[in-house]
């Protein structure tokens, strides 16, 4: 039975990373109906940035207490800021000129940006996995026979905190309102005096910042990073967003955790090599029976 709970923990941790990335996908899709394929690579950039900062700070050993907390907050914030800025720049130069172009153009551009980012990262740190200096203590604690790593707690905590913060932001602030308005009807929002460009830029800023946070957590969780990580993680996170209902924040979180759990339990009870098949079969099944995703609302067609 404890094996079940152990895999539950594994699945939630993996799912937490997917959820954080999926939030960014879903936000961007909600507002400009673009599937930002470059998002997975922004996540990898976040882990690369974390690697660079940790190497620069020369942290060799594990920290404790106050320095640990300060480092944690500081590096997460820096990573989020960095990725947020990258996201805004990508939007400004690659997507904004195509805002009124047929839907296919920004999609292809997104794929192009994805390849550009991947290759830049490959040139930056080389094509093999790179170890990340550790600064979070290793000790695990035991909860009724299940070993839980502190890093795993960090992942899940981050995901939940970020989602709550995001919900508050989108539903309780003025900019959040502007985002929801733009998502609902871009032209009407413009007519109401909302600055579309700023609103969309803020959306990308937040979405990419979340990817940056995911990058930080993953770099610490695995202890290594790799330029090609974003491809797989992005694909699974996108699946998570669609599974939960694209455009729906809670859906993205749910989708992320569901996929993480399917992978973990699939590896345990079926076989590791079938995990991808299971994840994508689940996606297909959900979409057949609930096309708008698990939590998505089927919007009535306006006549």
């Amino acid at each position, binding site marked *: 039975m404890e*094996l079940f709970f*152990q*895999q539950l923990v*594994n*699945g939630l*941790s*993996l799912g937490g990373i997917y959820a954080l990335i999926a939030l960014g996908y879903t936000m961007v899709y909600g507002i400009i109906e673009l599937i930002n394929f470059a998002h997975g690579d922004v996540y990898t950039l976040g882990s690369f940035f974390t690697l660079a900062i940790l190497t620069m700070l020369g942290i060799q050993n594990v920290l404790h207490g106050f320095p640990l907390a300060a480092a944690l907050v500081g590096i997460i914030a820096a990573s989020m800021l960095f990725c947020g800025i990258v996201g805004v720049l990508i939007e400004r130069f690659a997507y904004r000129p195509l805002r009124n172009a047929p839907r296919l153009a920004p999609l292809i551009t997104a794929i192009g940006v994805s390849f550009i980012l991947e290759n830049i990262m*490959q040139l930056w740190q*080389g*094509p*093999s*996995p790179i*170890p990340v200096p550790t600064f979070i203590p290793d000790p*695990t604690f035991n909860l009724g026979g299940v*070993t839980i*790593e502190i*890093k795993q707690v960090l992942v899940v905590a981050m995901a939940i905190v970020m989602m709550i913060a995001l919900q508050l932001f989108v539903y309780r602030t003025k900019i959040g309102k502007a985002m929801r308005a733009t998502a609902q009807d871009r032209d009407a929002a413009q007519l109401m005096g909302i600055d579309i460009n700023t609103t969309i830029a803020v959306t990308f800023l937040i979405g990419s910042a979340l990817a940056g946070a995911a990058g930080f957590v993953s770099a610490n969780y*695995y*202890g*290594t990073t*790799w330029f*090609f*990580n974003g*491809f*797989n*993680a992005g694909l699974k996170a996108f699946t998570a967003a669609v599974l939960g209902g694209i455009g729906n924040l809670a859906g993205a979180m749910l989708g992320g955790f569901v996929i993480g759990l399917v*992978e*973990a*339990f*699939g*590896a*345990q009870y079926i*076989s*590791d*090599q079938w*995990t*991808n098949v299971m994840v994508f079969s689940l996606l297909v099944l959900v979409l057949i029976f609930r096309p708008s995703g698990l939590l998505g609302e089927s919007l009535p067609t306006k006549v």
Partner: protein
Amino acid sequence: MRSFCVPRRAIALFAVLAVFGTVSVAASAADTYKIGIDLPTSGADASDGVPTKNGALLAIDDANAKGLPGGITLQAEPLDDAVQGVHDPAQGAQNLKTFAADPSVVGVVGPFNSNVARAEIPVSNDAGLALVSPSNTNDGLTIGEGAKALRTSHPDEITYFRVCTRDQNQGAAGADLAKSLGFKKAYVVDDNETYGKGLADVFDKDFRAGGGTILGHDHLTKNQQDFKALLTKIKATNPDVVYFGGVTATGGGLLRRQMGDAGMSNVPYIGGDGISDTEFLKDAGALANNSYYTVAAPDASKLPSAAAFNKEYKAKFGSDPGAYSASAYAAALVIINAIKEAAANGGVTRANVLKYVAATKGLPTPIGAVGFDKNGDTTNPVISEYKIVGGKPQFLKQISVKT
């Protein structure tokens, strides 16, 4: 306006002169033949491919320096079969086609990986171009119906040879090593590729035959980065050792590293020559220690015949030779020797070079005397065993397996 009309006869005369001119120029230059080299020399696989390539380059340079009969010079033509840092069979096949299309290429050293060889053997068979690998160990490349099926154009003509032994022997050596270290229960993981799965299957069979228990056999998915769920499953079975069939680039190192996170840091790890590179040491981090691996080549530092090679390699490339550098030197030497024989007996053509490669017997090389049997396998099968201690590989022993 007077139209400039060149009489047809003049054109014909110029054409004939041009043709004779080039032909005579070509004939007067000393013959240069190319030896192709197809290895993964970029990305994660570079730590395997580059030292191997260097071994072959050294052989060709040495031959040119010593001079070949008839004023022949040899030129190395290296191509990379790695795509995004990992060996790619389609790229390998493409490279072989490039070599096949170039008439001055009379032999190819490579490839490094067995799944790339599967894609390249049909091309080499079709072109009648000798392909000599320093390191492919999958059995199905030379033995059995599967091997014959690879020889699509001429099923009875062998154009693929290897100077290293097969996984049937490497897997057996791995099982023997595990048994000799006292391990009774093993969990096997492979990367689901030709080499990795083949090797893991042999280990599985031989470990059982030797009285051990296989607790489970799992396969990774491509580009997998998260092994925690799999390792939790493995830990629950309580193995004495984990055997990995595959290469570092497909997860061999990361799997080992994450064993630490999963609470299995005191469980040893055994792999094949796929983890015999420096990349594994980097990926696995602190957990590289207490890992063992087998290599289908003799340890160059232990052979008297290799002493000169080691010194030369270090002087030329500034680093120690890799696990397969001496084998690549031997593979290139096989082709060079065949070129010499062909030059003395009927001219250097692909068919002639192929004939003499197949007929290689007792050729002295840094890895010992090299010869091929009727399947293209080496007549001198040797497996070396290593343990990683203090971040460095330590030679344990060498097994000579006669099949």
